[in-house]
């Protein structure tokens, strides 16, 4: 599995909370320039895996590497500085700041001193990309749900990451919003950002991802392109909960 194009490598990570084994020995890699989907039925350990990768909490075993830099054990702010950005389920924002200030804060946090003009330009660029240019001076906490998700994405993009980790980017969206968001994810990839996403919405995952990794009960049960995954017997069993021999 030591493909030279691997941007992120997850080496048999495990996590148990007390006696509960949430993730057991999961390995995967994200290749530069791809959109990788991490899916699985409820309780499969995908959110835990996602949090282990992003450094939200340390794994009980195993390690995560960004090219040849070991991310495991680093604080989240150090991981962000290395070019890994993430969004949050349900979206986290700086609620009392304006939309533009939210983006600005992320730009400021990820750069050394920028001249005012350059800072403003970068904020405008991100706002334009996520389509919130008109709402720049609105207070973030008062945004509608769809706009909140876009802003959450914008905050992550403001870091100019090499790898973007999306935590259920389509959650709570209607089919049209999901299509728009899927388009957005592809546009992000087209700017040269590698994407790893965790998601429930199967059709959306199938349409947007280049490759998919399926987890069940804390283990990887399948990996491949969307067509292979759709046809994979173990995946169907895991989702439908039927016994293979029944």
């Amino acid at each position, binding site marked *: 599995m030591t493909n030279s194009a691997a941007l992120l490598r997850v080496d048999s990570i495990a996590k148990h909370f007390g006696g509960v084994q949430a993730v057991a020995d999961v390995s995967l890699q994200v290749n530069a320039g791809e959109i990788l989907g991490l899916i699985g039925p409820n309780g499969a350990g995908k959110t835990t895996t996602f949090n282990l990768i*992003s450094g939200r909490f340390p794994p009980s075993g195993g390690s995560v590497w960004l090219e040849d830099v070991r991310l495991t054990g680093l*604080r*989240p*702010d150090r991981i*962000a*500085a290395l070019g890994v*950005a*993430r969004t*949050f389920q349900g979206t*986290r*924002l*700086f*609620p*009392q*700041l304006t939309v533009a*200030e939210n983006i*600005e*804060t*992320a730009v*400021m*946090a*990820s750069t050394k*001193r920028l001249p005012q003009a350059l800072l403003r330009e970068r904020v405008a660029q991100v706002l334009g990309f996520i389509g919130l240019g008109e709402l720049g001076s609105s207070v973030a906490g008062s945004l509608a749900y769809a706009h909140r998700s876009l802003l959450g994405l914008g*905050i*992550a993009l*403001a*870091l100019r990451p090499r790898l973007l980790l999306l935590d259920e980017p389509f959650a709570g969206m209607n089919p049209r919003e999901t299509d728009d968001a899927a388009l957005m994810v592809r546009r992000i990839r087209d700017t040269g950002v590698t994407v790893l996403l965790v998601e429930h919405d199967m059709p959306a995952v199938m349409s947007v991802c280049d490759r998919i990794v399926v987890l069940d009960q804390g283990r990887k049960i399948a990996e491949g392109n969307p067509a292979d995954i759709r046809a994979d017997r173990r995946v169907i069993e895991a989702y439908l909960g039927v016994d293979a021999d029944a």
Partner: protein
Amino acid sequence: MFTIAMLIAPLLLGDYQAYLLTLTVIWAVLALSMAIVLGLAGQINLGQAAFVAISAYTSSVLRLRYGLDFWLAAPIALGAVIIVAALMGLLTLRLRGPFFILVMLAFAEIVRLLIANWQDVTNGPLGLRDIAPPEPLLGLHFDTKIGFYYLSLVVLLGCMVGLSLLMRSKIGRLLIGVREDDVLAEFVGIPVMRNKVLGLCIGAFVAGLGGLLLGPFLTILAPSQFTLFASVDMIVMAVVGGIATLAGPLLGAAFLVYVPELLSFSSEYRPAMMGALLILMTLFAPQGLAGLASKLRIALTRHAQHDE
């Protein structure tokens, strides 16, 4: 306008009024320090009085026992406050909610008991006496009520200007980011712990500045001045005035110095009155007096427009 009024007021008033104004200004510095901790570290600090006490006692002990000049003792005392605040921050800011509050409360009690029992240095519960006004500096004298008032005012205005510059700077923005959502802040690359400690230290520094003025102003220092109630008073002033604006703590301090003065109610009811006031303000005017003032201004403008 308000600033100009503060500048000329004592010239028109008698000694006692100058005393009340100075008291207001010093309390405003302390309330501002609490507003900083509330606003930048996102924490209620029931130990803030300890930072005031450390600064007041360190500077006054250095002057009374070691004969240091006020202007030499002041930076040493402020340095001591910042070091203690940084250590306390590193120890406690990992704790959330009630735990931070409880540990800081315990810390404040320890500081107070240390002062009360370390008789050789602090003179214990009897306190330090005859603390002189600051020595002249650059030809300016502070040994009159008016002179000392202006010194206090300069400290307050300096803090307000410094804070407003800070809030506009990158450092200020990162501090605000941590206050707004510390998880998100950390994932966009802000070292959260370092910023929380910094917020606490900035608040402690301002509290220390207030503490420097306290000794020469009152001429006596005693451990009984630095109980929990001193911290609570700072919180009430900050909340009553409004923590979202720079002028808020000054308004709150003025309110809490002058209202009891006008009503001349007995000091034994003070804690109860403070508690009631805090509850009322939190329920009915969470933005404080400063918020009420701006609401009133908006309402009046609307009214005026309506009349046209």
